[in-house]
């Protein structure tokens, strides 16, 4: 390490009380921000679980639909109309809805039922037990083995249950990329069986899943679906629409903003004040360094290094603490709805940079203002 930076490093870390206070302030702020945003990103991700797991390129839905969980039934002719549109390679129906199952011990459990197109089984999950063809067997259902699996009393192949007075049999155990948000077990079956077993309103078609012939056909398909009075969204658009719903229409976004601002203010006030005090306590000595022959840019470099070192250490500790907590939570709950992404990592990094900038700005100003003559004058 360059000598002058080593000097700055020793001045900083040897003042253990202040260095600890600085680290605690920044670590706490980063941790708070990372954790809140991780939870929110996790929630948004889990809220779009079905969209991610099915993986269709284009989703056709009623224009009033905001998320996959509040699907509004469409008449069957929509499927035929979409299939006849220009640019559509194929289109299949999807049922997605809630139901109540009666377990062997007599208790009732809410579940999410996904009904796949009988012909193609488009969007089927990856099986870890059983054979996908058995879904066509009488009363066949596939259970998803996620953190909610135990709520179905850990079923195995052949386990039975009742769904609206219909017998159901587990013929496969599957895994999916993303677990749902609401803590409900998921059952997959065929579209026909789903609409037959589950009490439904007049229209049963939740979504039409579309594969375009080419990416250039996507806009064309959207326009044709719009002309029909419905809405076509790409997978990413549907995920974004779901996220927008939670951000702007549930208060989640406001809460996130408030928590982010609080963590920023906490970090800024603790570290800003502590760092400024640290500079003030050493102000005369910085003046002495100036008198000895230190250039202003070297002093500014020392202060910026101290601020940056503290900030990066605090950032690392904050992110590490957040990661550790999420990992510990996942040991207990595999689908724990919190995930770190480059978005919140960058956001926290930006926040730390601002805290560092503001904290060091005040210190740098004071150090630049002090005149070596003041040291002589006493």
């Amino acid at each position, binding site marked *: *390490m*360059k*000598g*002058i930076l*080593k*000097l700055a490093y*020793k*001045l900083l870390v*040897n*003042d253990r009380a202040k260095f600890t206070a600085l680290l605690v302030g920044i670590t706490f702020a980063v941790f708070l921000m990372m954790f809140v945003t991780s939870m929110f990103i996790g929630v948004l991700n889990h809220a779009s679980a079905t969209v991610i797991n099915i993986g269709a390129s284009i989703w056709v839905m009623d224009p009033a639909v905001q998320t996959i969980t509040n699907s509004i039934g469409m008449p069957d002719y929509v499927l035929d109309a979409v299939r006849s549109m220009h640019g559509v390679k194929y289109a299949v129906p999807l049922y997605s809805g809630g139901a109540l199952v009666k377990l062997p011990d007599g208790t009732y459990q809410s579940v999410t039922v996904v009904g796949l197109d009988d012909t193609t089984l488009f969007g089927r999950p990856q099986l870890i037990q059983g054979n996908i063809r058995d879904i066509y067997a009488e009363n066949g259902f596939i259970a998803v083995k996620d953190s909610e699996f135990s709520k179905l009393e850990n079923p195995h192949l052949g386990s039975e249950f009742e769904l609206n007075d219909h017998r159901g049999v587990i013929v496969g155990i599957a895994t999916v990329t993303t677990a749902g948000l609401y803590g409900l077990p998921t059952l997959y079956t065929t579209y026909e069986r789903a609409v037959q077993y589950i009490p439904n309103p007049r229209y049963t078609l939740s979504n039409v899943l579309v594969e375009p012939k080419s990416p250039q056909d996507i806009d064309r398909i959207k326009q044709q679906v719009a002309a029909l009075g419905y809405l076509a969204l790409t997978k990413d658009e549907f995920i974004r629409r779901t996220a927008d719903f939670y951000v702007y229409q549930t208060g989640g976004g406001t809460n996130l903003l408030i928590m982010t601002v609080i963590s920023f203010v906490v970090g800024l006030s603790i570290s800003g004040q502590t760092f400024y005090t640290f500079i003030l306590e*050493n102000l*005369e*000595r910085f*003046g*002495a*360094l*100036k*008198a*000895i*022959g*230190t*250039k*202003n840019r*070297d002093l500014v470099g020392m202060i910026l290094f101290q601020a940056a070192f503290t900030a990066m250490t605090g950032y690392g500790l904050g992110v590490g603490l957040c990661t550790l907590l999420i990992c510990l939570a996942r040991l207990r709950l595999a689908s724990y709805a919190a995930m770190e992404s480059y978005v919140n990592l960058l956001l926290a990094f930006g926040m730390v940079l601002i805290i560092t900038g503001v904290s060091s700005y005040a210190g740098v100003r004071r150090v630049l203002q002090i*005149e*070596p*003559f003041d*040291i*002589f*004058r*006493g």
Partner: protein
Amino acid sequence: MTKAIQATGVNKWFGEGEAKTVALRDVALEAEFGEMVYIVGPSGSGKTTLLSVLSGILRPNSGNISVEGVDIWSLSADQLADFRLNKIGFVFQDYHLFPRLNTAENAAIPLILKKRDWDESMREAAKYLDIVGLKGRADLPPVKLSGGEQQRVAIARAMIGEPDILIMDEPTASLDGDTGHAILKFVHKNILNPNRCIVVVTHDSRIYEFASRILTMEDGRITGTRAA
């Protein structure tokens, strides 16, 4: 031969208009290498201002100041900082040691500022601490040292860069009489040499015996010069 310090017609004032305070009035002085020059006088007479102007810390309003033949106030800020670092050593009244650095690190600061290797700087600092009588104290923080010992660390810090000019501002002000006397005796015996000039600002008449010359200041003027 080049004078260590040569100043002519130096004026310095603070403020403007009715608030104007004149600190130095047409000051002229010369100091030779091998001399230990004392500047004495009552508080407010301009001693510290003169010391600051001579050492390149405070720009005078008018006048010429040459240190080792260099017109220091014609230098840029960075050049002047480098000049101070390489040519002038400072011993401050309150030492201004960093409490979070140990004794050797404090003493080594000028070498570190000169971008010398850290370990080499520490070895050099230990050598200078040895010279000022603080052998074996290199790892102690300044707070574990007495006032006299802290002043010795400050002297080691001032001397480690081998400056030609040593500036001492009230070096005995924070010390008891015996310690102050011992410190100046040490400086006179071990630090002063034919290639070095030492300028001391002091109120302490008990250390006058070590001066080569004593300049008396009053109201911003040098009013008297006498050999000690």
